[in-house]
Structures are given as structure tokens and as C-alpha cells.
């Protein structure tokens, strides 16, 4: 392993300016991706996983802002780059593919033109050469008769084909890092299988790192080397993929894995995580999962748990793994007996 990671995100805070208030959505996200490694960021909707990827790309909406933290790419801090500098990196060193292949391609240009555009942008080559490159890329991602397909418009292709085009476009300049934001969510399972397969094989060919964002743990198990589990804008668990599935640590991760109906198992009732994600304007001060956690103690509501290494390459952000856990539990029991009717502060709306 070289002296620094391909991508290293440190203590990232991102929020949105809404009229007069500023709402912080991402609250101290840390992770790193090594060269040639695939990291999956997993979580339910609204957990901030897409925002993380947009921050890395420097594509936050105008009202969004990185308030704290660093995004180190090849050791350089991307948060300090200007839009112009970022535009040289985007599409070239870091590429991205999106969830909706239906709408992510410009409907009025041919796919060939759209691929050629990125090539011409970053490599000073002629239009003709760029077009040839587009054909090559289409061939590479497994699109039949690419010579004709370069002249197709996006709407003439199926969803799977379009996602292949997106991949071709993303890989056209041999990026070091590919960010894939829910690339298969909109696709049917049989097509999803094809795309995941393609990505796995291309990753090896291109020797790049991948950050894959998904809500589907099945997909995670297919492609990931490392997994980052996020909940309500915070990292709750960060682990090696095997370790995560074999031995999930954080109550949220556990709940998530259990609540998926399994093909191989028979259950009458699914284990569930009660409640719903708290509103970003009304987050608990402490652990954000506390409102839904079966083990929650008063401390959990008030103090943010640190990311604790529970085993090698496996960290979880939960007081249960702290040395103080027994104390905390005792305190909690004492508190509960004092105030029988203590109500949690779960907000009504989401």
C-alpha cells in the first residue's frame, strides 16, 4: 500500500442553508478507500450517503456547503479546490455514475457524442478520435454493435444499456476513482446482475477504486471490499465486508440485516427496527439511533458515541463497545426507576 489512500475523507460536515437556518446533514464522516478497493456506503434513504458522494465530486447544490473536514484525493484536499480545478478532476480522475440511467443522459444528444465529449474535454484529441474512443468504450461495456449504437439517442436504449453507456462515459478517461450512486436500483434483478458483473470485471481491468452507494445489502455483499454503514448523517459502522455480514456490531446494522426477508430462511414474522429516522432539524444530541435502539440508555441520547474498533478492520459507533457500557447501563436503570414515565423524544413527523 502506498503512502496515502486513494481517497480519504476526514471528519466531513456538510449542511444546507435554508432561508435563515443552517441544517447540518453530514456530521463527521470518516472513511478511506485504498487503491483498487471497493467501498460500499450503505444506509436507508436520507442517511446522507448520496450527499457524501456529491461532496467528494464537489457537486453539492448551491445551498449546500462543506463546513468542516477534509476530502483527500491522492493526498490533495478537494474541499480547497476551485470549481475550475475540480472540473479538471471530475470525469478525469474521479468519475461518477448515477441511479437513474433514464434521466442521467442528455436526451437530445447521441450517446456517442456524450461519451466523446468527456474524452475531448480531458484529452486533447480530435473529434474523430474521440468518437472512435466512444465506440471502443461501448464495446468494452458490452453493448452490441457499438459502431451503430454511438449514433443512438438515449431513449432508444433500454435502462440496462443506458447504465452501460453511463459506465462507458465514466471510464472513458481511465479514472482512478469511480463513484457509483445506486447504479442498479432502478434496474430489474436480471439486469442488475449483468451490471454488477460488468462493474466487477471492469474494476480489475481499469485498476481503479470504487465507492458504491447503495441501500441494498445484497448488492453490498456482491461487490464490496469494505462497507460503511450510515445512519442519519453519521457513520455507525465501518468494516470489512466479511466481518460485517458475519458479525454485525451496531444495533442498526444488525436490525437492518435481520429485517430483510431471506430466500433461504422461513420466518413468520420479520424482526424489525421500530420507529423511523429522526428529522434532521430535530436530531437527538447523542447517538442518532438512540430513538429506535432497543439497548438505548440515557447516555446514548445525550452523548455522541465514538467510532470504536471492535475487531480488526471493524469499527462501530456505539456505546455498547465502550469500556463504560456497564456503568452507562446502571445509570440508565437508576434513571428509569426514578422516572417511570420518561418519554423518549421521538418527533412525530419525518
Amino acid at each position, binding site marked *: 500500500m502506498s503512502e496515502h489512500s486513494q481517497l480519504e475523507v476526514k471528519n466531513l460536515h456538510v449542511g444546507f442553508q435554508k432561508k435563515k437556518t443552517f441544517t447540518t446533514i453530514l456530521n463527521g464522516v470518516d472513511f478511506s478507500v485504498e487503491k483498487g478497493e471497493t467501498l460500499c456506503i450503505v444506509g436507508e434513504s436520507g442517511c446522507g450517503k448520496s450527499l457524501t458522494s456529491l461532496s467528494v465530486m464537489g457537486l453539492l447544490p448551491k445551498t449546500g456547503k462543506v463546513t468542516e473536514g477534509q476530502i483527500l484525493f491522492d493526498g490533495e484536499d478537494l474541499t480547497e479546490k476551485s470549481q475550475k480545478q475540480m472540473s479538471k478532476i*471530475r*470525469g478525469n480522475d474521479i468519475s461518477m455514475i448515477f441511479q437513474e440511467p433514464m434521466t442521467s443522459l*442528455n*436526451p437530445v444528444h447521441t450517446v456517442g457524442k456524450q461519451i466523446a*465529449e468527456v474524452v475531448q*474535454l480531458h484529452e486533447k484529441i480530435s473529434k474523430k478520435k474521440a468518437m472512435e474512443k466512444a465506440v471502443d468504450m461501448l464495446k468494452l461495456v458490452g453493448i452490441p454493435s457499438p459502431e451503430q449504437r454511438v449514433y443512438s439517442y438515449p431513449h432508444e436504449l433500454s435502462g440496462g444499456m443506458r447504465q452501460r453507456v453511463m459506465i462507458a462515459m465514466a471510464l472513458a478517461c481511465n479514472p482512478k476513482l469511480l463513484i457509483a450512486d445506486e447504479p442498479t436500483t432502478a434496474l430489474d434483478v436480471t439486469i442488475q446482475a449483468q451490471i454488477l458483473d460488468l462493474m466487477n470485471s471492469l474494476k480489475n481491468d481499469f485498476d481503479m477504486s470504487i465507492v458504491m452507494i447503495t441501500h441494498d445489502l445484497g448488492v453490498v455483499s456482491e461487490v464490496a471490499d469494505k462497507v460503511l454503514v450510515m445512519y442519519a448523517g453519521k457513520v455507525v459502522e465501518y468494516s470489512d465486508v466479511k466481518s460485517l455480514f458475519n458479525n454485525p456490531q451496531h444495533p442498526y446494522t444488525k436490525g437492518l440485516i435481520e429485517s430483510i426477508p431471506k430466500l433461504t430462511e422461513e420466518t413468520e414474522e420479520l424482526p424489525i427496527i421500530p420507529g423511523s429516522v429522526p428529522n434532521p432539524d430535530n436530531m437527538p444530541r447523542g447517538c442518532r439511533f438512540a430513538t429506535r435502539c432497543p439497548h438505548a440508555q440515557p447516555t446514548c441520547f445525550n452523548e455522541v458515541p465514538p467510532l470504536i474498533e471492535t475487531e480488526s478492520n471493524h469499527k462501530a459507533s456505539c456505546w455498547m463497545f465502550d469500556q463504560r457500557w456497564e456503568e452507562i447501563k446502571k445509570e440508565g436503570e437508576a434513571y428509569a426507576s426514578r422516572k417511570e414515565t420518561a418519554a423518549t423524544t421521538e418527533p412525530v413527523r419525518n
Partner: protein
Amino acid sequence: MVSFILRRLGLMIVILFLVSIIIFSLVNVLPGDPALLVLGQEATPDQIEALRDEMGLNDPLIVQYFNWVVDVLQGDFGNSIRDNTAVTTILMQKIPVTLELTVLSFFFAILIAIPAGIISASRKGTAWDYSSTLFALSGVSVPPFFLGILFIFIFAVTLGWLPPSGYVPLTEDFGRSLLLMLMPALTIGIRLSAELTRMLRSSLLEVLQSDYIRTGYAKGLLEKSVVFGHALRNALIPVITVSGLQMATFLGGAVITETIFSVPGLGQLVVTSILTRDFPVVQGAVMFMAFAVILINFFVDILYSVLDPRIKLSGGTK
């Protein structure tokens, strides 16, 4: 494509048929006897009756309508009651005038609207955006006759820079023709540009939200290239529809502006013909206008499909 054209042609015929019925009935319930207008105060009742007979005004309406339609289908719109000129001849004289005015107006409108719309949308929320929005709204709100009068007051009466009104054909004196058309074209152009600016702004804002714009940025494009290379063409598609409709409207609808600036175009023709009960001219001119509207819509649809490859001309109605 062929089926689209066939279907649209069928539709056009139906609409024109309805238009002909509407305008014919409207014109024929207009109070005022054209025969009287021709003959004036000095006419005797016998003469009026004779003329009414000659003009076919004494036939049942159905018969009149039928005769008219049969003539129209043969390309004969009849003769003006007022001066007995063939309606087609009159239209041929008026159309170039209105066309010149319309084209110039569009030219101004586009000249203003495209930069204004782009600036407004890409600098959303800034002073640029507000001033261009305010301009656009003002442009939509100012009545054409007031704007026209204001122009005359400022540029012709007070400053004396421009001739107040009038018309010279382009073929006769190119420069002067344009000069005379300047104020009327601006009057229409400003209003039109206002509408197009608003349209372009909202359409561009919507497009700028779309996923493929994000893809453009993700590719490493700068804002300028994203706006011009990816957003503008998509955003212009709805704007073109509106322009098409507007152009059609102005082909016959610059009534007030033409009146104020004494531009002898179709709008003025229709107004005077309605007021002087020149039925064949009203009918002919309105049929032409409706036809122009329908035809332009048809071309806009085709243009639409050229600009937006997603649209196939399958002929389904929305």
C-alpha cells in the same frame, strides 16, 4: 411520419371547417347591412334590395355558407364589399407587411429573451435575476397600445428621432422600411421577449435541475459549457412551442400595434373590415389567420421532433 402528417392534415381540415363555421356565423350575425354600407345614405330601398340580391345576402344562410365554402375551396375568397377588390389580392398585399413586422418583432424578442433568460436562470436569486424577472413581468403587463403611444411620445413627439408611423415596403426602400418598422416591432418585440424570457427562465431552471446536467458537471464540464452545450437546447424546446403559437397569434393579432402605427397589415385589415362590415374580407382574413396558426403549429410540432429525438411523430393527440 406519414401517418402523422395524414392525421394532422385530417385534423387541420376539421379545425378549419369549424373555424369557417364560427367565423361565418359570427360575421353574419354582425349588426349592419353591408349593402347599405356600399350604397351609403343616398341609396334607395330598391337599390339596396337589388344589391343584396346581387351579393347573395338574401339567400338562406346555409346556402350562403355553402356557396362561400365552394368558392373558397376553389381559391376564391370573394371580393371586398367595400372596394370590390378580390380578397386574395388584398391578403397578398397585407401579408408581406405583417410578415415583416412579425419577423422583426421576433428578431428583437429573441435578441432580448435569450440572454435575459439565460442570465436570469443561471444567476437565480441574484439582482440579475430579479431585474430580468421584473423586466419580463413588466413587458407582459404593459398594454401594447400604451407602449406604442409611449414610444411615439418619446421617440417621435419629444425627441423627434423616428417617424411616428407609416409604412414603406421593404422592396421600395429597405432602410426606411426598417426604420418605420422599428417602433412597432419593438412594441411587439418587447412584449414577446418578456413572455419568452419567463418561459426560458422557468424551462431552463427546470432543465438545470435534471440529472443529465449533473452528469455534465460530473464529466468535468464548466458551467458555461453545461448551460450552452446541454441545458439550452433542451430548455428551448418548450420555448419554441410558445414562440410558434405567439408567431401565429401575431400574424393576425398585431391589431392594436398596427392601428397605432398605421401599419397596413392584416391586423388593421381585420379591424377595419369588421368595423365596416366587409364580410368577405373578414372571413377571408380570419380563415387565413387560422390557417397560419394551424400551419405554424404543425411546423412547430415537426421542429419539436427534430430538436427532441425522443418525440416520434406518431400522431397521438395529447
